[in-house]
């Protein structure tokens, strides 16, 4: 009799987060180490060039009319930070000065975020992201269209931005949100323990088979360890490995949950059924071998402990993660266990993709009456260093310091830890700083990613599932039930298992789905 919709909310959040990590929308890993210029303090005057152009004062006759004071409402899906109130007060002083407006920022949970949207409440600004179904929400009328005229009149800096960086905000040719100014590479890396490599004579890890040799040595010799101790939501790491190594991509969906994909080097960009490819069968056969050899638990599909957690505690010998993810684990582990001698190797060769800038962004509410002022505020938050640094990092000296290298340092017990206060909708990599302390070949891998980067015409594409929603729904369900276990090698007979999955896919309407998706892809490419 009790309302039981509660916990799923957390799960939903956790799963979305997993998808998010998987989608690797790291905010600040590229191109930022160069910006070691003098650090701005929040008290610095607002006369930086960005502010001057982006914030027309009331006296400028040509600028927008801001004579009427307004209060903007902004909703951010986050649990906030203890000092958020102080930051918001300071922000309000600045907005009152620059655009004659104040902004009321409310943090809300994911459930409340969805409720806010679906109940049709009036609001001005809200966080949006592709992993939070931005495109679908936009198609269903959750946000106000941002027309080119509005953009150039009220957010001139954004209007002048690189088209490529704004493309993620467009849905069906119309812009409904302004994406962040930070995107990351789709780059996977192995994190392994140097001490074990030395002990078992594994000189280097270059290929997936080298990785297998390492795991095998651990499986045979370290009885208290499970070499690649996957948790229940870690199947995608294997799938990512497969997609990356075979130059595959699934447009518009997180790669692994899609049963269709296209070869990035195929000039016609034709979709194929992933499970028709011989490579897939080969890969799954390998994974079955790995599973049978005990590289992960027989019960990995129910394991409540994540790869990361068991790695930190010495129960797991390897990770497959993004560059920032590797950096994070390095930072944590290297202090407590320097003897483990953590090493990071690129997990696949070949071209590297990047993720859409729409991994985060800000949208305007469908019923907002202050869209103009909201856009002006967004321009400030995005391009004005004072606004950006204040909201992203807090007060200089209190919440962060900059060391002599120009890297940013945070106190251990910060009351405004970075990225905690829901500000990831206007991250700007120009102002994003490298965190103090990263693994030895960090810069090398970043350079490698950049060198191998190949633009992908479909990076911002999303499928409009309106007509095929029941097919989409059932396909994703089938993924969980069949493909997830298959990628982890949980099947007695690989060929029969794949056949069973394919039969189910066909029953669920895969052909129709593929046809619709291909049509939309072709149209999207034509319109580009």
């Amino acid at each position, binding site marked *: 009799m009790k*309302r039981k919709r509660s916990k799923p909310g957390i799960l939903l959040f956790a799963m979305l987060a997993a998808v998010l990590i998987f989608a690797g929308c790291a905010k600040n890993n590229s191109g930022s180490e160069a910006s070691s210029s003098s650090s701005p303090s929040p008290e610095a005057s607002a006369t930086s060039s960005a502010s001057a152009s982006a914030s027309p004062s009331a006296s400028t006759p040509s600028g927008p009319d801001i004579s009427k004071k307004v209060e903007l409402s902004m909703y951010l899906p986050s649990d906030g930070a203890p000092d958020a109130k102080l930051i918001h007060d300071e922000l309000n002083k600045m907005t009152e000065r620059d655009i004659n407006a104040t902004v009321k920022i409310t943090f809300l949970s994911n459930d409340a975020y969805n409720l806010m949207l679906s109940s049709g409440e009036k609001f001005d600004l809200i966080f949006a992201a592709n992993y939070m179904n931005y495109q679908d929400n936009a198609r269903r009328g959750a946000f106000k269209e941002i027309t080119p005229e509005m953009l150039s009149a009220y957010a001139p800096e954004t209007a002048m931005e690189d088209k490529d960086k704004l493309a993620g905000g467009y849905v069906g040719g119309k812009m409904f949100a302004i994406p962040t100014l930070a995107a990351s590479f789709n780059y996977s890396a192995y994190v392994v323990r140097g001490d074990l490599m030395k002990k078992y004579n594994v000189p280097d890890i270059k290929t997936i088979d080298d990785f297998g040799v390492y795991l095998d040595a651990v499986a045979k010799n370290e009885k208290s360890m499970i070499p690649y101790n996957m948790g229940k939501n870690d199947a995608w790491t294997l799938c990512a490995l497969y997609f990356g190594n075979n130059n595959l991509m699934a447009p518009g969906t997180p790669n692994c949950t899609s049963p269709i994909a296209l070869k990035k080097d195929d000039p016609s960009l034709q979709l194929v059924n992933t499970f028709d490819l011989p490579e897939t069968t080969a890969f799954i056969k390998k994974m079955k071998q790995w599973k049978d050899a005990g590289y992960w638990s027989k019960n990995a599909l129910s394991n409540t402990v994540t790869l990361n957690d068991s790695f930190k505690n010495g129960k797991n010998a390897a990770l497959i993660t993004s560059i*920032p993810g590797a950096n994070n684990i390095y930072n944590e582990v290297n202090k407590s266990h320097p003897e483990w001698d953590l090493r990071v190797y690129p997990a696949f060769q070949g071209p590297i993709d990047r993720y859409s800038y729409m991994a985060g962004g800000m949208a305007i509410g469908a019923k907002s009456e202050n869209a103009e002022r909201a856009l002006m505020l967004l321009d400030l938050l995005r391009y004005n260093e004072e606004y950006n640094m204040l909201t992203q990092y807090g007060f200089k000296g209190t919440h962060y310091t900059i060391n002599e290298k120009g890297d940013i340092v945070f106190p251990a017990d910060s009351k405004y830890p970075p990225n905690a206060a829901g500000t990831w909708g206007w991250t700007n990599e120009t102002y994003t700083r490298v965190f103090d302390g990263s693994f030895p070949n960090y810069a090398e891998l970043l350079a490698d990613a950049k060198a191998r980067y190949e633009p992908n015409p479909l990076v911002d594409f999303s499928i409009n599932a309106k007509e095929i929603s029941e097919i989409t729904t059932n396909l994703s369900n089938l993924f969980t039930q069949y493909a997830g276990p298959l990628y982890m090698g949980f099947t007695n007979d690989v060929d029969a298992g794949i056949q069973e999955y394919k039969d189910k896919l066909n029953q669920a309407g895969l052909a129709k789905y593929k046809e619709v998706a291909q049509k939309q892809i072709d149209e999207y490419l034509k319109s580009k």
Partner: protein
Amino acid sequence: MRYSRSGTVAVNTIKKTDKLAFNVIGYVVLGAISLLCLVPFLITLSGSVTKDSALFEYGYRLIPKMFSLEAYELIFRTPEVIVGAYTVTILLVVSGTVLGLFLTAMTAYVLHRRDFKYRNKFSFFFFFTTLFSGGLVPWYLVMINLGLKNSFLALLLPHLFAVFHIIIMRTFFTGIPESLGESAKIDGAGDLTIFVRLYLPISLPALSTIGLFIALTYWNDWYQAMLFITKPSLIPLQYHLYKIFNSMEAAQIVAQKTGMPVAQMPTETFKLAMTVVVTGPIILVYPFVQKYFVKGMTVGAVKG
């Protein structure tokens, strides 16, 4: 205690063997079940005072492997917030239970009266709502349009009535002989008077049962707060804990995404400490409720 087994004491001696057998079987069975219930809680308790990393390394244990209060330190890091959250929760539990119990019992009283012609129609009217619901969004809209956002009432109203409670209460009242009310009626007492003066005092086990259920509902609820409360002064305990937990998870996720060093926080042990903090007070209060679970305190005692 006085009431408990008054009548049976004398005869006890005669039928000793079956009593003994029953007691032995009963205690063995109950003891076994209790043990099954107690051990996981002890493991929770022990886990909550273990170092987070030790929990991963050695698993759950009855005796903590590496003692640490880090999870509790995190909960009580801001004592004034905890005190505030406790205050909100206690106010909510007390006012919600008193009001909810009275209204539930009153409704159940009407529904149990045989001379109330529409009793079945109204019972159905209430019960129907457990079968069909319009979903979260329309309900949320009603709450918002009543202006309940950021108000104490947003926490209080959603659990004021539960059909489940009304019907159980009605069942309990059915056990009370109708002659009780009828004789009072002849004396000129009104329905409300009969309900308050006669029914309530003799229904203590039933009232304490439903009261306990209502109290637990209020005590455990964080969902309403998550939907409607952003004002710090109105945040109840459970939602406060939920928020700490959530922001810890979020911090880890962010750490993964950005590679940013974050203070390592005891997520696993925190969940366990949360359980202990939330359970403790109820377990302390429960024995007082049990006082009313004494045989013969209802109808029988009155009649006898």
